[in-house]
């Protein structure tokens, strides 16, 4: 049995158990005497223990066993106190770290320190200590070599191995075992025993004798391997996703239809039957659209898959700060592309920490709300705390030279709030351990924008803050606005476009050196895409197409040659070395074979500044 092939399965299942444990631990604090929850916790950690031991991840199994003991104690006490919850949560974190180690194929990290530190509260349980046991890869020397694998169902591994050794002693002389009896006695033995046995029995006879042990899943007689061990494959942490079989059935059906479609198109083409060809293409369009939809489904995951940790985070923050904050999550079933969700984990956590740390003073509520608006998903973190003080931001911005005193006079609240996303900005009077010093909102904004989204900040002093991420549903296939500029076709993600308008050249005004227009009561600076791309000036036009977008939190008008239209495109990252081109976030191939670049105005401008 090649245990390694179960690794991914182990990792994904163990991770699920850990997530569940975190949620249960937070839940049980509200009802410390809830036996069912404690039992569920026990089962979860017990499963991890069993799986890890099977896999031979002894430190993981060891720690899980320790946590199991702690829970056992809680079970005996009939309740679980906050300190024990802290301890157990720390253990869950450590298990999380161990899974990281296993994922990266590193040796498992040390767990003895943690166990020793928390053993005091476990004294009542006696010396049930397990030490990770190493099994030799092979045993060298005379005698018959045996490899016995214990079945999954075997609950008590160490005792079972001892019984097996006793059994083998009846067949001859046991020369060596790995793990040794001493190691087995220490606990934490793996489900594998290698033995060198001096015996008069043949392999077949031995096999027959051992078959009466249904606890054995495998009885092997390995031949001596050359001492040179083959190099282990490099770690490839391929991420996996569970797909419902229904969806797979859809795929195969669609594939079948596509094959049929291909033949009808072929026939129509060879017969030059334009009517059939036309119909076939119509069908192809439908099939591809359907396929696209289904593939997206596979990539979609509910927001719940990343919000699982948040109640725990709030709980920890409350415990360390003494605040009383309740967390509510609405729309956790809203689905997004997994690639987007993965990028959102940290920003979301940061926004939550900000809300608890800086927003709420003593007690309050944080509401995380997700909803869909057409092909965008909005995720909002709202708190009913003290809100962001525009005066303080203005002051801080002046101190940091982010705005000039003149700007400070005229700057609007909306623009002021955007300043909290500037690198190194913070209004928290004191630095707190959790939110740190203002790093964060700029990171959040960058992450959101990298995904083709927009970050909106809204706050009312004394009433609270609402920070909203406006995100595309999927990263691979996005809707873009196509723009013509200096005979180049460029694309801008539609999520970045606030509005498109056309203006008359007469509407352009000047403010200092800057060209501006007045739009809906505010002055928008104008930028010329030709100028940014270092292209010669274009011919004079009667109407100037303008894309209103946001750069560094400020609304600007981008002058382009022509607005071509919108469409859905499949964006691919550019291959090396082109991915280093600043201002270009990917490319897509058009129906006629042309390459269209998706550009990112902000990084284009950064390059210009640099």
């Amino acid at each position, binding site marked *: 049995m090649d245990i390694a092939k179960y690794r991914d399965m182990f990792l994904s299942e163990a991770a699920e158990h850990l997530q569940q444990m975190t949620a249960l631990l937070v839940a049980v604090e509200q009802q410390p005497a809830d036996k069912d929850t404690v039992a569920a916790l026990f089962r979860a950690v017990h499963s991890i223990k069993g799986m890890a031991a099977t896999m031979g991840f002894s430190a993981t199994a060891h720690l899980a*066993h320790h946590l199991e003991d702690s829970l056992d104690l809680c079970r005996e006490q009939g309740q679980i106190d906050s300190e024990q919850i802290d301890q157990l949560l720390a253990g869950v974190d450590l298990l999380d770290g161990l899974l990281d180690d296993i994922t990266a194929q590193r040796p498992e990290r040390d767990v003895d320190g943690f166990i020793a530190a928390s053993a005091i509260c476990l004294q009542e349980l006696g010396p049930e200590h397990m030490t990770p046991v190493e099994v030799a890869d092979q045993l060298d020397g005379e005698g018959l070599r045996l490899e016995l694998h214990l079945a999954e169902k075997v609950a008590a591994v160490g005792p079972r191995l001892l*019984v097996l050794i006793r059994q083998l002693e009846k067949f001859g002389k046991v020369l060596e075992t790995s793990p040794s009896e001493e190691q087995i006695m220490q606990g934490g033995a793996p489900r594998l025993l290698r033995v060198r046995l001096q015996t008069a029995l043949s392999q077949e006879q031995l096999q027959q004798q051992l078959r009466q042990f249904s606890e054995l899943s495998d009885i092997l007689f390995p031949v001596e391997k050359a001492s040179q061990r083959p190099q282990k494959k490099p770690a490839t942490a391929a991420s996996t996703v569970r797909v419902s079989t229904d969806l797979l059935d859809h795929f195969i059906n669609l594939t079948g239809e596509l094959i049929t479609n291909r033949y009808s198109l072929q026939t129509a083409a060879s017969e030059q039957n334009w009517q059939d060809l036309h119909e076939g293409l119509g069908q192809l369009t439908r099939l591809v659209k359907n396929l696209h939809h289904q593939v997206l489904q596979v990539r979609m995951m509910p927001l719940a898959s990343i919000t699982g940790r948040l109640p725990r985070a709030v709980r920890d923050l409350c415990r360390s700060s003494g605040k009383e904050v309740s967390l509510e999550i609405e729309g956790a079933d809203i689905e997004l592309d997994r690639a987007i969700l993965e990028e959102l984990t940290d920003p979301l956590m940061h926004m939550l920490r900000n809300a608890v740390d800086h927003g709420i003073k003593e007690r309050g509520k944080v509401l995380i709300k997700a909803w869909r608006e057409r092909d965008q998903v909005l995720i909002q973190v709202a708190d009913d705390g003290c809100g962001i003080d525009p005066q303080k931001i203005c002051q801080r911005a002046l101190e940091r030279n982010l705005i000039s005193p003149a700007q400070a006079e005229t700057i609007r609240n909306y623009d002021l709030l955007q300043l909290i996303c500037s690198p190194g900005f913070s209004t928290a009077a004191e630095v707190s351990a959790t939110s740190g010093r203002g790093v964060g909102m700029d990171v959040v904004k960058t992450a959101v924008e990298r995904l083709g989204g927009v970050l909106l900040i809204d706050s009312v002093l004394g009433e609270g803050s609402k920070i909203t991420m406006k995100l595309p549903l999927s990263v691979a296939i996005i809707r873009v606005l196509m723009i013509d500029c200096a005979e180049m076709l460029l694309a801008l993600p539609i999520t970045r476009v606030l509005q498109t308008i056309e203006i008359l050249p007469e509407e352009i005004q000047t403010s200092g050196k800057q060209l501006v227009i007045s739009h809906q009561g505010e002055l928008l600076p104008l930028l010329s895409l030709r100028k940014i791309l270092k292209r010669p000036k274009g011919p004079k036009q009667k109407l100037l197409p303008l894309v209103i977008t946001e750069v560094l939190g400020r609304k600007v008008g981008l002058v382009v040659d022509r607005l071509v239209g919108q469409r859905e495109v499949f964006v691919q990252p550019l291959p090396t070395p082109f991915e280093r081109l600043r201002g270009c976030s990917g490319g897509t191939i058009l129906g006629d074979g042309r390459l269209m670049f998706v550009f990112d105005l902000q990084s284009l401008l950064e390059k210009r500044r640099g």
Partner: protein
Amino acid sequence: MTKRVLIVDDALFMRNLLRDIFSEAGWQVVAEAENGLRAIEEYNIHKPDLVTMDIVMPELGGLDAMRRILSEHADAKVVMCSALGQERMVMDAIKAGAKDFIVKPFQDQQVLEVVERVCGE
């Protein structure tokens, strides 16, 4: 020949459960004991083919009871009954001469496989 077993456990529920398992499989339950001291007495009276021995019991624990039985009857066949997390104690018992062990929650097949294997030798 019908095999004879002595069941030792402080919990009536567990004793009943084991009694059912053994009876259904055609074993004769010669006696039951609810602690280690009674177990030794019953063993001396009945000299059963097999003893199932719980570990944690009042008066005298299973390990000590087994040791005392083995010191008098070296050929006694004792199978330990353990709960999860008692591995260390089970290993001590095996080192001290227990033939095998069964783990709670008991499953008929698992119990019978172990005891029949032990008695088949």
